[in-house]
């Protein structure tokens, strides 16, 4: 063993790293860094972030019926819902106010799990900024609502499964309605499909 060999070996390792960083791909000793604003890593499909509300064709046909289950289940209590009333003061099963405080939300996805109307889902949009914390990060209904196409785009597997399920239950309902037309159909909102709330 020649004196100083270890030092020399160590220097060769760093030299190799230095040179390969210019020519090689990340997996063979190149640079791993993703230059964020210009380059982005591909977001995986099951990535979950802040919740959003799905509507079907038009913003009027929102799936949410303002049942308030997510509001109750939300661990950090970041959801606030008020049901809309019609002219007679009767509840219309539509949300008048649906606020989510993104500053409080902890991205747990509990609301997505408990929603019986397939209305609230977790989004892929993670670049959420605001100039101040109290008001700026509260998202109101208008900004929370996103179309089903968008849902299909960001999480295609889940969205198609939900669509199929909804279509199947819709068909079943139609068939049932054809058999016994006695009770009138509730309203534009979809019937309970997932599970009965406690």
């Amino acid at each position, binding site marked *: 063993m020649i004196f100083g060999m270890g*030092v020399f070996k*160590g220097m060769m390792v760093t030299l190799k790293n*230095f040179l390969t960083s210019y020519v090689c791909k990340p997996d063979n000793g190149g*640079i791993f860094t993703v230059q964020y604003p210009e380059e982005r890593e591909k977001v995986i499909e099951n990535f979950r972030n802040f919740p959003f509300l799905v509507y079907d064709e038009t913003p009027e046909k929102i799936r949410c019926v303002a049942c308030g289950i997510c509001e109750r289940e939300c661990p950090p209590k970041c959801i606030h819902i008020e049901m809309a009333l019609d002219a007679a003061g009767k509840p219309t099963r539509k949300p008048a106010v649906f606020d989510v405080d993104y500053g409080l939300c902890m991205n747990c996805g509990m609301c997505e799990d408990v929603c019986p109307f397939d209305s609230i889902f977790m989004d892929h949009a993670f670049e959420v900024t605001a100039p101040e914390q109290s008001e700026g990060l509260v998202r109101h209904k208008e900004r929370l609502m996103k179309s089903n196409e968008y849902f299909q785009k960001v999480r295609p597997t889940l969205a198609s499964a939900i669509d199929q399920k909804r279509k199947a239950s819709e068909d079943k309902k139609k068939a049932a309605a054809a058999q016994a037309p006695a009770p009138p159909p509730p309203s534009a909102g979809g019937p309970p499909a997932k599970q009965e709330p406690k």
Partner: protein
Amino acid sequence: MIRSWEFYVDMIFVTAKAWILSLLGRFLPDWIVVLASITISGVVILCLGPVIMMYLTLLERKVIGRIQNRYGPNRVGKWGLLQPIADGIKMFTKEDIVPANADKIVHLLAPIVIVVPALMIFLVVPFGERMTAVNLNIGLLFFIAVSSVTILPIFMGSWASRNKYSLLGGMRTAAQMISYEIPMTLAVVPAIMMSQSLSTNTIVLAQTGDFDLHWFIFTPWGIVGFIIFFLCATAECNRPPFDLPEAESELVAGFHTEYSGMKFALFYMAEYMNAFTLCGIAATLFLGGWQGPFLPSWLWFFGKTFLLICVMIWFRGTFPRFRVDHLMGFAWKFLLPLTLINILLTALWQFTSNLTAWLWSILILGISLWILVKLNRTFVPEKRHYPLES
């Protein structure tokens, strides 16, 4: 006159200065011209030092980044070229904090004083042919003397901060710099012996030859001297792996723990300018300074210097820090005897410089290296075995 364009490229700075002076000389008295000559050189050095320091930080961050498989700073300007300026603005606008119990005046003076020797060494560095600011006939001695003063402001800063980390850092700096100054000075001696001069210019001129490639590093004593000098230079400017004075994991930031803003920047600046000048002197002494074929002289000088700086950065990217006792032992027990042997080798080379001298040198070096390594072996106690009682 068959002076080719190469000559003019070589002399571009010298010619520019002479032209300005002749222009001034037409309508101004002589003494102003003399002052102007001094001022031009002074201003060039005063600008060169900080600019080199700024871009050294960028180079270091880039190279270290590449060694660690990442891009360095690349956001401010193309390839991060404006990053040093952004850093400078940041440093200027930072709050200047002085500890309550600090010795205010000394605390203020230390970072100012430390820049002075760092800038003064630039005076004797031969940047190119006829491009030494002051052609002192004791240039090398001047360099050694001035760089030895660097300890003083470090002491001032560390003592005035009234901080245990600063004080420990200062003590370590003093111990390290005094220790490494001795092998560094002795490593220079062979170059002085062979060129028979202390002037940096004459030392460079002594290395001319076919293709301007008769550099001292191509001799056995030259390469040993160069390695020793370069290691000591790395230790002198407190760079890794010899960065015990500012060992982050032990001493927060060593002697400049209590400094912030522009004062800290001045310490930083002195460190990088020292690194540059030490590399420049190493290039002058052993790599032939501005000598070299084809390219203009100043380009050769800066090329060699930046190559050496890259090696320093490479060291930083590779080695972990020394242990304190190993650091001292390395200087006193290994480098110092080796420099003395190297001086003997130089004397041998002076009288018989041919193939047999090469063989003799390698033989002597090999034997002495072997003996030194044997003597320097750290004491490892024998592993004890405790047999189970039967």
